[in-house]
């Protein structure tokens, strides 16, 4: 609270910028909504509850989308909640379609817009074949970028489009809300011109953007690192790399590293406890061998029925082959 910036600007703006107002508004709204129930156990307690849940990141569960995307903290919390709740799906090795992931998202946020899921899927799949199956980790990281930096990516798309069409984007950048514009692949009239835009120019534009951007942007240093490695790049190539970059993930802080994505010992323990009391199966549980052994000690991957449900495919947790290929073509 006592950062030096605080003194640099008026209090009100400071609170607004730090989204404190958002939470205060929401707290009051919740109070208003459930005033009978809350008054029973005390308003002070309610506020404690509320801000505690905000700190823990559980405040976004089953909330409306407008609230979930309202602050970066909410977004990160949602990403984390999604990961925690459906890590088991990924662990099971199932490859799912965009629609199914969308359904999972909707289980946590009933009005989650399809558009965001589609965009995230596009980062993974690189083209319009939207019915393809994706691995959980691929989708999750792409979704992270898309969801957390949604506005930033929209602006980047506009810049990219401008660069492609030869305009100098430095003059003025209007982050167009009309998404989907950039979806159309640039019409490569001249066959000789390689796909994409020049990386250095692109970086300059992004730098410029980050300076002025009021929404959250990925750390510029990391963007630079990504862009320095290549000569030219395409929009989705850029997003793909961005989504796979471990530094960005760390900076975001919502999800564990890719290697640890399937690990969540606390929750696993909880799950084993739950499994032991599957209704109506109590006597049977002891009978099944894999559940007979002490659950906490058994590594979840070994000896437990973690098998793909319907697709007996190779569990592809590392990465989606298609994205990898495109990356290489970029570099």
């Amino acid at each position, binding site marked *: 609270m006592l950062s030096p910036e605080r003194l640099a600007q008026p*209090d*009100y703006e400071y*609170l607004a910028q730090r989204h404190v*107002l958002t939470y205060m508004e*929401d707290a*009051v*709204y*919740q*109070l*208003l*909504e*459930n005033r009978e*129930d*809350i008054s029973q*156990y005390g308003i002070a307690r*309610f506020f404690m*509850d*509320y801000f*505690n*849940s905000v700190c823990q990141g*559980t*405040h976004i*569960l*089953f*909330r*409306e989308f*407008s609230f979930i995307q309202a602050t970066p903290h909410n977004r990160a919390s949602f990403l984390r*909640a999604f990961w*925690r*709740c459906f890590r*088991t*799906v990924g662990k*099971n090795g*199932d490859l*799912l*379609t965009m*629609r*199914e992931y969308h*359904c*999972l998202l*909707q*289980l946590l946020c*009933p*009005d989650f817009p399809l558009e965001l899921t589609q965009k995230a899927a596009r980062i993974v799949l690189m083209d319009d074949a939207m019915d393809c199956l994706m691995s959980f980790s691929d989708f999750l990281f792409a979704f992270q970028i898309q969801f957390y930096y949604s506005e930033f990516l929209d602006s980047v798309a506009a810049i990219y489009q401008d660069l492609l069409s030869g305009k100098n984007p430095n003059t003025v950048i209007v982050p167009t809300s009309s998404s989907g514009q950039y979806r159309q692949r640039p019409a490569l009239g001249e066959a000789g011109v390689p796909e994409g835009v020049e990386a250095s120019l692109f970086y300059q534009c992004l730098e410029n953007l980050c300076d002025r951007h009021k929404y959250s942007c990925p750390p510029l240093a990391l963007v630079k690192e990504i862009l320095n490695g290549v000569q030219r790049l395409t929009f989705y190539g850029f997003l793909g790399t961005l989504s796979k970059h471990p530094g960005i993930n760390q900076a975001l802080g919502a999800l564990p590293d890719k290697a640890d994505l399937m690990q969540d010992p606390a*929750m696993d323990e*909880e*799950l084993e406890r*739950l*499994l032991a009391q*599957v*209704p*109506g*199966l109590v006597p049977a549980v002891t009978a*099944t061998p894999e*559940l007979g052994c002490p659950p906490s000690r058994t590594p979840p991957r070994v000896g437990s*029925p*973690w098998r793909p*449900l*319907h*697709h007996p495919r190779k569990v592809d947790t590392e990465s989606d082959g298609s994205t990898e290929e495109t990356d290489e073509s970029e570099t």
Partner: protein
Amino acid sequence: MIPGKYRSVSGRAANNVNCGLHLVIQPSSLPEKNKVEFKLNRDTPSFPGRLLQHDLERNYSSRQGDGRVISPSPRNKSSCISSTTNLTELCGLEMKTTTSSLSAFGDSSIQTPSKSRIRQGCHSAGPNISGDHINLVNSSMPSFPILQHSSEEKSLYSDRLTLERQKLTVCPIIDGEEHLRLLNFQHNFITRIQNISNLQRLIFLDLYDNQIEEISGLSTLRSLRVLLLGKNRIKKISNLENLINLDVLDLHGNQITKIENVNHLCDLRVLNLARNLLSHVDNLTGLDSLTELNLRHNQIAFVRDVDHLPSLQRLFLSFNNISSFDSVSCLADSTSLSDITFDGNPIAQESWYKHTVLQNMTQLRQLDMRRITEEERRMASVVAKKEEEKKRESQKQSLLKEKKRLTINNVARHWDLQQRVANNATNQDRKDSASPPQDPCQTEGSTISPFPEDTGAVDSGLTSALQSLSVIDTHLVEVDGDTLSLYGSGALESLDRNWSVQTAGMITTVSFTFIEFDEIVQVLPKLKIKLPNSLHLKFKETNLAMLQQFNALAQLRRIDQLTVDPQGNPVVNFTLWKYYVLFRLSHFSMQKINGTEVTQNDMIMAERLFGILAHVASSELPQYHLISILGDARKKQFRYLLETKGKKPGIVNEENNDSKRLVGENTNRATLNYTTREFYNEKLEDIKEKKKFCKMYIEDLVKEATEINMKNEALQKLWPQMFIELVRDAVIETRNKNSYMKLCLQQITDQK
């Protein structure tokens, strides 16, 4: 055996023959019954046997079918004699004998030992002579053989001439025999009827077993009464115009394909068209005297006009191609018909054959040669009645089925339209996100609602009835046994009606087709009350697209089975849907999903996949939110009910209590519930409003607070200086103790 009986009286019969043709029967004078019997007895071995083929065949064990007895077996002679019989009968000269004597007379022919003897007996040398003549003159081609009798013979057998088996290829010229009444050309090779036009008194003409291809040369034989043309090559019935007295016409064993040119034969009693190529029977008008019609062994598929034959008594249709009673239905209208055969037709194979025929033709006395008993008739009428009932029932059923089909089609069409509109709307929404989300279902619904409604309560006493069907243009409600099928959104209203306890209790399966799942969700509380025993839910074309939609089913009392048809339910394409259903509805301990048994492993898998979600939802959800979510769920159910039946407070209250119990489901799953899009949008609107208010409120508060804070900070800044100033003033004031004391004292005194 019958022949034996005949033989016994043969001697007398022979006498009769010898007496010439004095023996006459006037058929009309005989009593009906006698006549029948008489025919049976007399005709069997004799000429009418050819006409009454059925009799013949029965006696000969159907050996020869309709063919005549051609082989030169002892029976051949019968044909000859029979003709005599017939002649005597037809001539109607003199009634001399009774039935018995007549039959005896018939028998006499049998008694005659051989062909030659007949000839001798009847015609003496006549045939022989003719044979010679033929041989003689045949060599000289242009002229015809001329037949002449000795005057002696003429005087003896002046009225008959038999030229049987004479290998004749043409008709001989018969001169001076104008008085001839009977002429027999059986078993020759005659190809054309000629040279007999002068025999104007001819009554009987037998051309059986020749090679005649066309009926011709008969136009002058006006008194001809019996014409036998069996076993020839005739293709067409023609040139009978002048034979108006014809009584018997035998055309069996020819190649006739249709009945024609017989309408003027108003005296014809017997017509034999067996073993021809008839494909159907019609054009029978005018045959007012026809009593017997033989149509065996044709290819007849249908029969018409028989009801225009006022005298027809016997009709033989054996061995044809009749396959339904409809194709011979005119028989039912014939009042005179008493004897009919259908054996050898496809129709006779049918189980309903006998009683259908009997039922439709009550006038019948014999069917397929067997006398019909009263018992049979009774049975037939009973069976027919039953049949009729069944038919009516099945007709009703099929009508209903058809109606159902049409309605379902209609509903499907509506559904498709609705889907398309909805898609368009969402597309528009997507394009123009600023516009308020319009609800396509709503607009569509308003167009549907004015459709006719049926008002009757679904079933009342008909609990045992399998089908109680109420069909409405745009939706369909069907109760079939334990299944309630609803088609189209309008069908959901049926749940508002008064269901009898029995019916409602019987229904264990509810199937939804062509209904938006969101609309179903709204009636689920009602479903729970009205159909407490429903265990199996089926969804088809219901737009089930999201896993969360299954949450809505958790509020039901119990589900054993769930069937979600892939058609129109995209959710089924998901890998996880089954597990999610199992997980979310685990408190029902479901047994089957889409017909597949739920195994323990499935349950465990479901828990593994989604257990954490439930855990997070229950243990990590902040309490204030938990309350609001659960409260919402309660309110929502309440609202669904209120909206549709606010006028019935009793039920609402009941439901209220019910929902407060919130079912015995796993509480950690209760937070996972589903709000229909409509309600959710409303809720979002609501939220927006409240948020706006909160925002303003907070804004004011914060502004106030920051102002206070600013003032406070300003004060804080000023305060040290102020303090110093204060202290300084005080110090200056108290610097001179004495003067300060004085001042103070002064003040005190002033106060006083």
